[in-house]
């Protein structure tokens, strides 16, 4: 009997534990906390989303201990309602002291807020931003100076910060390291979004809209924006500002997120009171409708990483009903004509690299799509040592709803907007609601995040904007507060409690920067480094509690903490017990020298500035594949140039052939004693109409002189156009004779000469990629057999419809002494053709369909046999693929008009959806416009509901099960695929070369990548810096090696020796060839 009761109790207790385990965050209601703040919006005929574009951006929130009782208090700003200050009374109860404190505010439209000790008296003051001067808004930005007795006095004018402009937020930080807090004020523009305008607009300075840098001169804030190099703000819709010492030189830098056309700004602090805006140099692309942002070291490399939020929906039903990315031509105009940088509509996660560049991994990391997202807050919410991510989102009305844009808006608002600029609620009601649940992601290893929405936090239906974290209940973990539209503020209490261990750091710093803003902390435990900086203004229109918080899982003692104070002094604490709050102040500090970035020493590669005379610059012609085949998933026209190395002039030194692009001749560089010299060979130079995309050098007619085989392509010429034909150029001693080869009208991709039949003459494998205008069609590739200098197609080799071939090698994979052929390509599996005396036999398929780009034999696992490096598409794109849910492409003439279409499909929750939206699909398949009368009716429809079976049967389905690059591990003659880790999956890997680069007696593989031939919805795969693979586990990224591969799309890597010195040659599409000296240590 008693046993039963005990048992029941135990079960009950376990059940309870189980329940609390399931939700990491528990929402507290207003009744228990006393926090009843609601940012209630009153939509009127005079003021709504049509009159003010940021009507739904919401208020602000700040967490900080205003009375120094160790309990963090909460301050909310309301757009139209009064601000509220809640005093933390302990036990998660709060007292509304707003009125008594005198902080309710007088401006008509409040926005962001910051708590900071502006006057340096040890008490947190409150700064409140406001939009003033449009829509009848009045007032000014208010600075509430803390009187130390729970009351405040508004003294903005006295301090020089009483701006009456269009402010969204501000941040206080000491940019000139003079010991006091300066301020950056974020304002938004009112410039028309109806036309782009040139980027030079950013130089026009306007008081109302321009961001401002304000230097604190003894308590007076002086506008130094112009002299400091801050842009003027005519077209900058500033919504996010993040402060961090991104380049780790001791001086805090800024990342400013701008909405709409204007680029984000990456202001690097020069340390002399000025900043240099450097976005284009260090970021390959950025978020387009940039909103909030946050900074944290998410990959534990001691460098601050960054997220910038945008508004890409995750759900198909919203995604396909909302305006998406630009089309490829508009993007081109914006970049080429108006000078903007690449911007794409999704969250961007930027991983800070040692050379200052950022690797953008949001798609790979799983945080790209969180819908209409305002605030990002990194924090180790489960205290496992990895940074997690909270995203607050939602919009009351989706103004970019396509049905509203195209169909609904017309009658309802046209006359009103034309005549009165007013709109009634009826029109507003026609826009769909954009309440989407907030997202919480659990950070993991290898730069990945896992969506824990609904597990860590219940999925809400509220619209949340500004958010902040703080340890409200004093139990050491991070709680969250969000300011919501028309709903009570959310108080989300973290229930991690002491299940995992933490450290909470507060700082007592020399006045006037009493809270130590800008302090950095490196934490070391069990070989793991964690890095944080104290810049409490983060997320969106908010500031968090000025603390630094680390999680440690089950680690009880932290090996050491290195505290670096803003004044470049440091102190180290060792053997610190976890689960405590430390109050740290400068003690026994020593000067801290930031490592100098300007020179990285002992790099493996040094760029040769004169390129050894090899001034080859590949210029891709202007042709855009998507103009002709509008639904192609990526281009086929940008696969050049060709490159081939061989001794063309028979002087014992290797020369180099570079393929030309359309109407630009190919070039040959002949090796001399100390450089290369370009020579003009009329036969080849005259053949400039073609696009030479692959080439091979060999003595094809066995006369002792090297000849040249060139495969043409370019995917522009079509049908039986002569410029598609491949060429053999036979050297006759003084010049080259052009000889015919069996006609091939496919777009070539690879030329591999080899005497496969061992008859003493050079045969050649010619791999082809695509047939112009028929993307998806498997191309024929050819094995050309040499008969005394003339070629015929070897019919015993089954090259018909081999696939979209990209690369091939001759290698004896079965070690039987006969050299075999391995071919890779897109939408196909690597194919192994065994060379036998009776012809080639394809080995059992590997069932490894990928978008393979390159192939290289190399013993990766160092077990003595040959593995094969396989460059693939990577996982940092909107393609997704697995064996169970492959990426699919439908190929066929689905509307029977004589022209084929491709439809690319990805799997989501068990169904397949096209990547393209209704506009794009129906531009080719017009009948879809009859079938789907609205975007809503199309959104969320899987392909089976879009095309009926009869139509689907008209096409073929191609598939890809593996997008990751990796290698084929040779297990005694059988092969298994081993993927690389994630920092090699950020972009397609396009080229590889092996060589003993570090002269240690064993070869390494150098790989390069990046690819730009995709539409804006995919973005731009631009941030892979290259990598050196020493072994399976030993990978060094190119930015540690002196390589400059970021933002360039590589096609070939090769080594060449000149005057006994080895060099690396890197050939890019549409860029200048690079030559690196391979340094000896």
């Amino acid at each position, binding site marked *: 009997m008693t046993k039963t009761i005990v048992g029941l109790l135990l079960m009950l207790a376990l059940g309870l534990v189980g329940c609390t385990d399931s939700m990491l965050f528990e929402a507290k209601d207003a009744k228990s906390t006393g926090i009843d703040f609601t940012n209630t919006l009153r939509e009127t005929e005079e003021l709504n*989303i*049509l009159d003010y*574009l*940021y009507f739904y951006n919401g208020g602000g929130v700040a967490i900080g201990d205003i009375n120094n009782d160790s309990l963090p208090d909460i301050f909310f700003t309301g757009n139209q309602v009064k601000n509220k200050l809640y005093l933390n009374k302990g036990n998660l109860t709060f007292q509304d002291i707003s009125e008594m404190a005198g902080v309710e505010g007088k401006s008509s439209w409040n926005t962001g807020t910051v708590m900071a000790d502006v006057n340096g008296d040890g008490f947190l003051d409150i700064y409140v931003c406001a939009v003033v001067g449009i829509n009848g808004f009045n007032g000014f930005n208010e600075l509430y100076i803390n009187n130390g007795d729970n009351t405040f006095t508004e003294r903005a004018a006295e301090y020089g910060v009483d701006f009456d402009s269009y402010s969204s937020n501000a941040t206080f930080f000491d940019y000139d390291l003079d010991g006091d807090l300066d301020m950056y004020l974020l304002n938004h523009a009112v410039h*028309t*979004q*109806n*036309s*782009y*305008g*040139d980027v030079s607009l950013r130089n026009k300075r306007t008081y109302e809209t321009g961001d401002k840098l304000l230097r604190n001169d003894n308590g007076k804030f002086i506008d130094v924006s112009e002299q400091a190099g801050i842009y003027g703000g005519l077209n900058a819709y500033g919504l996010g500002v993040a402060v961090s010492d991104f380049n780790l030189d001791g001086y805090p830098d800024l990342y400013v997120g701008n909405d709409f056309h204007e680029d984000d700004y990456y202001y690097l602090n020069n340390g002399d009171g000025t900043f240099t805006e450097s976005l284009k140099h260090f970021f390959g692309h950025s978020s387009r*409708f940039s909103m909030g942002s946050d900074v944290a070291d998410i990959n534990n490399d001691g460098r601050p990483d960054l997220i910038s939020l945008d*508004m890409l929906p995750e759900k198909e039903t919203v995604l396909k009903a909302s*305006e998406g990315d630009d*089309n490829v*031509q*508009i993007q*081109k*105009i914006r970049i080429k*004509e108006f000078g903007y940088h690449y911007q794409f509509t999704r969250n961007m996660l930027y991983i800070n690299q040692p050379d200052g560049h950022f690797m953008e991994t949001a798609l790979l990391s799983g945080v790209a799509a969180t819908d209409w997202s305002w605030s990002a807050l990194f924090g180790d919410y489960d205290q496992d040592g990895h940074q997690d991510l909270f995203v607050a989102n939602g919009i009351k009305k989706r*103004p*970019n709803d396509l049905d*509203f*844009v*195209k*169909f609904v*808006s*017309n009658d309802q*608002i*046209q*006359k009103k*907007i*034309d*005549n009165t600029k007013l709109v009634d609620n009826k029109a507003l009601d026609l826009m769909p609601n954009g309440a989407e649940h907030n997202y919480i992601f659990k950070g993991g290893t290898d730069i990945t995040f896992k969506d824990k929405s609904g597990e860590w936090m219940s999925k809400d239906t509220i619209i949340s904007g500004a958010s902040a974290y703080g340890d409200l209940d004093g139990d050491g973990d991070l709680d969250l507060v969000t300011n919501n539209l028309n709903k009570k503020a959310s108080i989300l209490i973290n229930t991690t409690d002491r299940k995992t261990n933490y450290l909470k750091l507060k700082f007592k710093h020399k006045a006037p920067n009493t809270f130590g803003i800008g302090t950095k902390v490196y934490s070391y435990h069990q070989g793991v480094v964690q890095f944080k900086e104290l810049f409490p203004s983060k997320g969106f229109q908010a500031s968090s509690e000025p603390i630094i918080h680390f999680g440690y899982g089950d680690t009880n003692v932290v090996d050491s903490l290195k505290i670096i104070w803003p004044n470049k002094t440091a102190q180290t604490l060792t053997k610190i017990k976890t689960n405590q709050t430390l109050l740290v102040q400068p003690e026994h500090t020593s000067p801290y020298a930031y490592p100098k970035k300007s020179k990285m020493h002992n790099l493996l590669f040094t760029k040769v500035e004169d390129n050894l005379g090899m001034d080859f610059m590949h210029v891709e012609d*202007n*042709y*855009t594949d*998507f*103009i*002709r085949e*509008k639904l192609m998933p990526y281009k086929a026209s940008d696969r050049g140039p060709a490159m081939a190395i061989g001794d063309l002039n028979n002087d014992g030194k290797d020369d180099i052939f570079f393929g030309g692009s359309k109407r630009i001749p190919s070039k040959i560089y002949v090796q001399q004693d100390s450089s290369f010299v370009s020579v003009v060979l009329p036969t080849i130079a005259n053949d400039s109409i073609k696009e030479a995309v692959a080439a091979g050098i060999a003595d094809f007619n066995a006369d002792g002189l090297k000849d040249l085989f060139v495969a043409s392509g370019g995917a522009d010429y079509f049908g039986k156009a002569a410029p598609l034909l491949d060429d053999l150029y036979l050297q006759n001693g003084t010049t080259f004779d052009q000889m015919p080869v069996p006609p091939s009208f496919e777009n070539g991709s690879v030329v591999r000469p080899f005497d496969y039949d061992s008859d003493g003459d050079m045969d050649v494998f010619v791999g082809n990629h695509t047939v112009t205008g028929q993307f998806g069609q498997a191309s024929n590739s050819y094995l050309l057999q040499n008969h005394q200098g003339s070629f015929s197609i070897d019919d015993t080799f089954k090259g018909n419809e081999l696939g979209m071939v990209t690369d091939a090698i001759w290698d004896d994979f079965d070690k039987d002494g006969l050299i075999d052929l391995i071919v890779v390509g897109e939408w196909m599996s690597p194919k192994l053709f065994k060379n036998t005396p009776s012809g080639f036999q394809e080995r059992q398929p590997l069932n490894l369909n990928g978008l393979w780009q390159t192939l290289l034999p190399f013993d990766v696992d160092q077990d003595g046999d040959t593995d094969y490096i396989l460059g693939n598409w990577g996982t940092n794109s909107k393609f997704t693929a697995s064996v169970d849910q492959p990426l699919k492409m439908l190929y066929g003439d689905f*509307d029977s*008009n*004589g*022209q084929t*279409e491709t439809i690319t499909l990805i799997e989501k929750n068990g169904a397949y959806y096209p990547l393209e939206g209704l506009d794009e699909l129906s*531009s*080719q398949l*017009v009948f879809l*416009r*009859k079938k789907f*009368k609205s975007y809503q009716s199309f959104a969320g429809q899987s392909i089976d509901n879009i095309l009926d079976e009869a139509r689907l049967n008209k096409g073929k389905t191609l598939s890809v099960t593996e997008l990751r690059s990796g290698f084929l591990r040779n297990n005694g003659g059988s092969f298994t695929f081993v993927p690389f880790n994630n920092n090699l999956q950020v972009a397609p890997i396009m080229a590889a070369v092996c060589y003993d680069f570090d002269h240690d007696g064993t070869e390494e593989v150098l790989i390069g990548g990046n690819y730009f031939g995709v539409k804006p919805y995919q973005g731009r795969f631009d941030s892979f810096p290259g990598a050196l693979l020493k072994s399976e586990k030993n990978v060094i990224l190119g930015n540690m090696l002196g390589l400059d591969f970021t933002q360039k799309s590589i096609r070939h890597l090769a080594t060449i020796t000149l005057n006994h010195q080895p060099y690396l040659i890197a050939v890019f599409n549409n860029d200048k060839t690079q030559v690196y000296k391979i340094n000896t240590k």
Partner: protein
Amino acid sequence: MKLTSRFLVLFTATACFISCSKQTTPIVIHPDDFHRSVDRVTEIMIHDIFSPPVASRIYAYPNIAAYEILAQNSVEYQSISNSLTGLSPIPRIPENEPVNYELAALIAHMDLSKQLIFSEDRIEAYRDSLYTIWKKQNQKEFDASKTYGLSVAQHISSWMNKDNYKQTRTMPKFSIDSDDPSRWQPTPPAYMSGIEPHWSKIRPFVIDSSNQFKPTPPPEFSMEPESEFYKELKEVYDISNEITAKGDDSEEVAIAKFWDCNPYVSVTRGHLMFATKKITPGAHWIGITKIAAQKTNANVMETVHAYTKTSIAIADAFISCWDEKYRSNLIRPETLINQHIDDSWQPVLQTPPFPEYTSGHSVVSGAAATALTSIFGDNFAFDDDTEVPYGLPVRSFESFNKAADEAAISRMYGGIHYRAAVEVGVKQGRDLGAFVVANLKTKANKDLVKND
């Protein structure tokens, strides 16, 4: 009354007398039924957002189907299948069937319209309510007319489906990949791709080929201030400044807005985007056709004749104009003015998304006015209330030609065309219109009528 009609009525009445057990009434089709059907198509086109050339095609085919049915029963008018490229004669009316020509014509008109637009439900609802009424009035007559009307619609449809429209859908987009400074570029705010770059490949109706009325080339592109081209560019800028200074009430601004006829003017306010939609230039002239038909109390045959002739002239005008547009690929004034003269200048009207030369509205207005003049005569004064539903006032004109001249010049006031595009364009349209009028043999030879 014509003999055949009288016979038909007699026949129908007799048939009915013999077979109908319940009370039936003959179905009477009024010209307004056709006006309503055309108006319905216009409304749906606005909703579905068809570009001006595509809209012109949507008007033409249903009108031709209705015309061909009616002409069989007309003394004055005759089949135009000989005048239209590729059209074979429509099926004859089956004998001994109580077909009401006018009803069959309307049914064919609605059916083809439905095939051509996207939002079929919007036509179906309208059609079904009419069907119900007619069925109630006279089921036999309705059934016979429907069967016949749909068979003609089917005939016209298979002709229509060979006009290369479907193939042009998957032809390449207009490429802006060029360094040519005179080449058209997408314009603010939506920077839409050039629409219908292959419209010249659509089979024309009456003209021999899309380049039959190839206009003189535009003034040679030059940004030298002394050049003809630059002067025309500057003229657009100066006129625009002058009339906007006068304000929205100025006559020129009123003219520009009245003839805007842009089916999709996109507006962006922050993240809020919407479109104000209006009828196309073709639809405006179809509206004028209705005004003229109603003013002259035209009967069904005359009404459908007017619609048919005008819509064919308009459709061929678009083919001809688009041929030139994507031959000269001329850049719009807005792009050049923003690049070279004033980076904040905006035209009074939103620049439509296709090359500048020649002005589509000018060509179409010239062609439509010529067609209408041939039907209703010159100096036909009318009050144009076509744009009233779109918030614009009524404008009065002394003649179709004067209206066309105003429509042409409105494009300069609107800041979207240079003078050459307007002046050459309206001439191109008039020449084309005269050819259509001369070669579209709608009326039987008068001598033959006499002999009959």
